[in-house]
């Protein structure tokens, strides 16, 4: 088998995650989907690093994780605050982007 | 490495702006004097430039400075002045102190306005003026297209606030109305110039792309590009060259302003205070005409020659059209604005006549027009500040109650109609001769502008200054000392340059010659040269 399959898998997961982002209203679930997408990317990176035979890909994946962690922390905090204020975790309720 | 004179000339006012802005609200007077001091320092530096500048030196630019800036895009921090730039810088540095003095009280907070500790209009006013000065100076100095473009655009920001933020005290009209019209004018100014600027940006990028394509490494440096063109390393295909030329020219035509892109000027000059109006027409707009000379002609000589007929036509329209509309105005400041449009028509005409007289005259015209308009507009400002109205109909017989004011106003007006003996005559006649020697018809049409100029100036003078004294004018005070200090030197300068413009022409001439050589044009020869005539005799 060729490691490229890992890439196919990654693409698949990424697409699924993106779809989730689009169709789910629950902020937490949306967030999870985002995580899924990130993970898909990581998988791709790791695979690339294997394909090219150097560790830079893994480094990037590593940084992705760190950033993802930070992002999750903030994101969840935001969700909690929103939940407190309007007793709902639906992204559609926060439609104040419209002027 | 020697002292970076050019940078200093631009930096001093910039620093001054920051310093002035930082002055606490209470110390208003201090801020004014500080700003004035900085502007004078700039004037000194500009004078030093003028002295250090050697007209006969070889090479187009002098006092050059060059440092790498953004390597990846070949953007360099390149400064240099030729005879044209150095004169215009001197003009700018000269006018700014007068502008400040004239606007000494324009930005004082109104009586009874809440003493807010944060609100510092005066500081802002003077800081903005200094900021404009800095930007204008550096765009005169920049020989790197990108650098020039940067400040050519950045200039809009302080100007926007100067126009929108400070207007005449509302006379008959209500505060709200004036405020509304003022912001309208400011936005109009911004939009017009931004539009021009954006198109120019496209052209700038295009230029980079072309150079990168043909020279291997893209560059914005005027000298490099010109050199490459001369060596034949750079061969712009006509279509590209014309497109780029139009991109540049459009921006400059808006700034200049050239018909039909002129309509922002009357609003801006009408709503802004007189000093700011002077700043617009006498200083900022000059960058446009100047840039036509430096960039349009030198970067795209072929396209310039290609576009000349159209541009000459537009310039003629501007001349006649502006003059006619000036005749039709009921508002003093708008009248002066349209007069300026007419004059800018002359400048553009001179530039694109592609003769030594035309371009030399145009450059001289920029200087003289700056001074004469400043004189006329500032006196008009004094007049308006006394009566609180811009309508010509509200005046009459001022000459009786305030003879000195009327006198200076008349002199300014006569300069505007380019009476011989005053500076503008020399430049206007040069432009006319230069144009006539290449396009006789155009030259004759342009002379019509002279008659019309006499018409609007004299009508203005007659309606405002002569005749029986009207209500509201009665008891009007004559010029105060501060105002005299502003006007007297300008008038003196007008007289001096009218009688003895040689110092300027000597500096300008070589630069113009260089430009002409870039465009590969030479003056048309007289068909019966003098020497032949004498030989025949």
């Amino acid at each position: 088998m060729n490691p490229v399959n890992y890439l196919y898998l990654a693409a698949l997961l990424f697409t699924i995650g993106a779809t989730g982002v689009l169709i789910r209203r629950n902020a937490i679930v949306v967030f999870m989907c985002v995580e899924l997408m990130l993970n898909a990317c990581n998988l791709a990176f790791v695979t690339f690093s294997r394909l090219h035979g150097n560790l830079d890909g893994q480094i990037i994946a590593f940084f992705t994780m760190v950033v993802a962690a930070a992002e999750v922390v903030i994101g969840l905090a935001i969700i909690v605050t929103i939940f407190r204020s309007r007793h709902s975790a639906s992204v559609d309720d926060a439609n104040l982007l419209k002027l | 490495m020697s002292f970076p004179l050019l940078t200093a000339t631009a930096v001093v006012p910039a620093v001054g702006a920051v310093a002035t802005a930082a002055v606490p609200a209470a110390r208003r007077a201090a801020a004014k004097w500080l700003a004035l001091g900085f502007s004078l320092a700039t004037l000194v530096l500009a004078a030093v430039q003028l002295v250090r500048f050697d007209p006969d030196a070889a090479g187009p630019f002098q006092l050059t400075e060059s440092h790498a800036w953004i390597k990846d895009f070949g953007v360099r921090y390149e400064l240099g002045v030729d005879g044209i730039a150095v004169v215009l810088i001197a003009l700018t540095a000269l006018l700014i102190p007068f502008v400040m003095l004239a606007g000494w009280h324009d930005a004082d907070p109104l009586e009874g306005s809440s003493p807010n500790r944060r609100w510092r209009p005066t500081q802002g006013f003077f800081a903005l003026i200094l900021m404009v000065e800095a930007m204008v100076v550096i765009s005169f100095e920049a020989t790197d297209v990108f650098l020039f473009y940067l400040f050519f655009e950045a200039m809009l920001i302080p100007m926007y606030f100067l126009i929108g933020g400070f207007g005449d005290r509302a006379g008959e009209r209500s505060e709200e109305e004036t405020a509304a019209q003022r912001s309208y004018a400011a936005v109009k100014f911004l939009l017009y110039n931004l539009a021009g600027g954006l198109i120019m940006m496209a052209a700038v990028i295009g230029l980079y792309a072309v150079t990168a394509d043909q020279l291997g490494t893209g560059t914005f440096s005027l000298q490099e590009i010109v050199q490459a063109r001369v060596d034949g390393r750079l061969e712009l295909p006509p279509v590209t060259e014309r497109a780029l030329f139009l991109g540049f020219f459009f921006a400059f035509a808006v700034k200049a302003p050239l018909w039909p892109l002129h309509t922002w000027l009357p609003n801006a000059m009408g709503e802004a205070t007189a000093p700011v109006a002077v700043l617009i027409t006498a200083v900022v707009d000059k960058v446009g005409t100047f840039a036509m000379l430096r960039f349009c002609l030198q970067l795209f000589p072929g396209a310039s020659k290609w576009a000349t007929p159209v541009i000459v036509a537009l310039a003629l329209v501007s001349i006649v059209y502006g003059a006619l509309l000036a005749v039709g105005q009921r508002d003093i400041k708008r009248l002066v604005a349209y007069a300026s449009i007419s004059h800018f028509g002359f400048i553009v005409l001179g530039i694109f006549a592609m003769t030594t007289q035309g371009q030399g005259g145009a450059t001289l015209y920029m200087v003289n027009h700056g001074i004469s308009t400043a004189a006329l507009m500032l006196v008009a400002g004094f007049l308006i500040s006394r009566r609180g109205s811009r309508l010509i109909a509200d005046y009459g017989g001022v000459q009786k109650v305030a003879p000195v004011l009327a006198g200076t106003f008349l002199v300014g007006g006569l300069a505007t109609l380019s009476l011989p003996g005053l500076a503008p005559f020399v430049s206007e006649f040069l432009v006319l001769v230069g144009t006539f020697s290449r396009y006789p018809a155009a030259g004759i049409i342009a002379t019509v502008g002279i008659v019309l100029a006499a018409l609007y100036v004299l009508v203005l003078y007659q309606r405002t200054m002569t005749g029986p004294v009207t209500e509201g004018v009665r008891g009007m005070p004559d010029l105060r000392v501060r105002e005299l200090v502003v006007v007297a030197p300008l008038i003196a300068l007008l007289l001096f340059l009218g009688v003895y413009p040689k110092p300027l022409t000597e500096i300008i001439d070589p630069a113009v010659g260089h430009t002409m050589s870039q465009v590969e044009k030479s003056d048309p020869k007289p068909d019966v040269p003098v020497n032949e005539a004498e030989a025949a005799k």
Partner: protein
Amino acid sequence: MENLIGLLVAAPLLGAAVLLCGGRRLDRSGPWVGTLLAAVSFGLGVVLFADMLGRSGEDRTLTTTVFSWVPVGGFRADVGFQLDQLSMTFVLLITGVGTLIHLYSVGYMEHDERRRRFFGYLNLFLAAMLLLVVADNYLLLYVGWEGVGLASYLLIGFWQHKPSAATAAKKAFLVNRVGDMGLSVAIMLMFTTFGTFAFGPVLDGAEAAGEGKLTAIGLMLLLAACGKSAQVPLQSWLGDAMEGPTPVSALIHAATMVTAGVYLITRSGAVFDAAPTAQAAVVTVGAVTLLFGAIVGCAKDDIKKALAGSTMSQIGYMILAAGLGPVGYVFAIMHLVTHGFFKAGLFLGAGSVMHGMNDEVDMRRYGGLRKYMPVTFVTFGLGYLAIIGFPGLSGFFSKDKIIEAAFAKGGTEGWILGGAALLGAGITAFYMTRVMIMTFFGEPRWQPTASDSGSAAGSGAPHPHESPKTMTVPMVILAFGSVFAGGLFSINDTFLKWLEPVTGHAHGNPPVSALTVTAATMVVLVLGVALAWARYGRRPVPVTAPRGSGLTRAARRDLFQDDFNHVVLVRGGEHLTRSLVYVDHTLVDGVVNGTAASVGGLSGRMRRLQNGYARSYAVSMFGGAALLIAATLLMRAV
């Protein structure tokens, strides 16, 4: 010696500067300062004259270059002076008459609180006029040319509180500007043709240039002359110019400035000689104007306007002469000088009359003044005799010569021109007699009237009185001039010899003998006088002007020429500007605003897409990403 020329101009210029800039402290001494400086410049003129006489006819020309004025590329304009016999004549006339009129004004203006400025302007005028005549190139001449225009503008509008005065001043300047346009175009033509516009090269090289160019230049110069010298079609300003103080009318609008056109044409003789078409135009203008002015002069009841009409027609004579070429130049100048004397004298006389009559200008309110102001009467009378060409007086010699020269043109042309000149002489006799009679003879017709003039000492019944010495003395001197000048000039052709080196001279051969011409002139003269006497001398003059014949009414309205201007130029111009303002506001501005509005509407529609749901934005992002990938793949594919 050369440097004196500079001083000649500098002296009055200095006076102007001092008087205009120096504050109120000069109010008292101002007039005398001005007069003194005028006198100084006259003195310098005399000195130069003496020096010139000291040299032989050929090398009498003095030239000097003061400094290089505008050097740009091949364009070299210097401030340089050239003083030859022609210039000299003018210098003496200008400074001489100028000084006298300064002196006169001291008395005339003593009640005006702004007289300091008045004298400043007068000095300014002298300086400009002198510069005009001593310049050695056309551009510098142009400076003087516009300078006198400015001075005349300031002086006509001197009583600025009178709207009529302000308007008249503006009109004068504008009409002059039209002429100046011609001059500037002419200069440009010279530059393109000869590469210079200094007198020397241009005039010497004239033949070398093609006739076409020269004709163009000539016509342009003629246009300039028409503007400055109030010739048809640009004559309309002169009548209104009488709004100015009378000394101004005397100096500027009779003696000196209005003759600048004649100077220009004479100076550019070489050009015209080589361009017959232009010459034809010149003589036509001259002939038409001399009749036009004469006719207008017949109908005016305003004494100054009547004189203005006569000025117009006299200058018409000069232009006519100048247009005749070498035959006429000398006589043109000669008539110019003598006219300078007697016309200035007449105006001063008129001024003196007005001075005594509370600035009343309507001749129908005069009458029988000879008893009250004898000196004025005598001097005015001598001037009158001079202008109608009474044998032995100045006008006789100069005008006669012109008429001869006109006939000498030869062919039908000659007959037409000569006839016109002759007719003009007759009409001149008529209207001058009319003025004379209405003013000084007959019964007193003045009664208490509210005179609304500027510096009047209130209204009420005028009690005519002789004017002070400062006013009478100049009148007397000018009277002497107007009596003897012509004689002196003509005795064995002094004047001709004097000017010939500059202008050249050719003796024309009239189809009829000179004597016949003179006789004819005498006849028409007598006829004119007799007719006038019959109409105004025998029966009393009605105080209110009768309706008069159609011609009279037309003449009163300057033969409708002014109305034409008003309707065509003023009204039309107003409409044009107003419509243009509208266009600028709606069209030019409207296009821009329109685009702005449409963009606004578009964005308003786009705004609907912004429903505020993060997820639908996400969709568009995602779609965009997909498109990007597609694009990249395509790029790679091709």
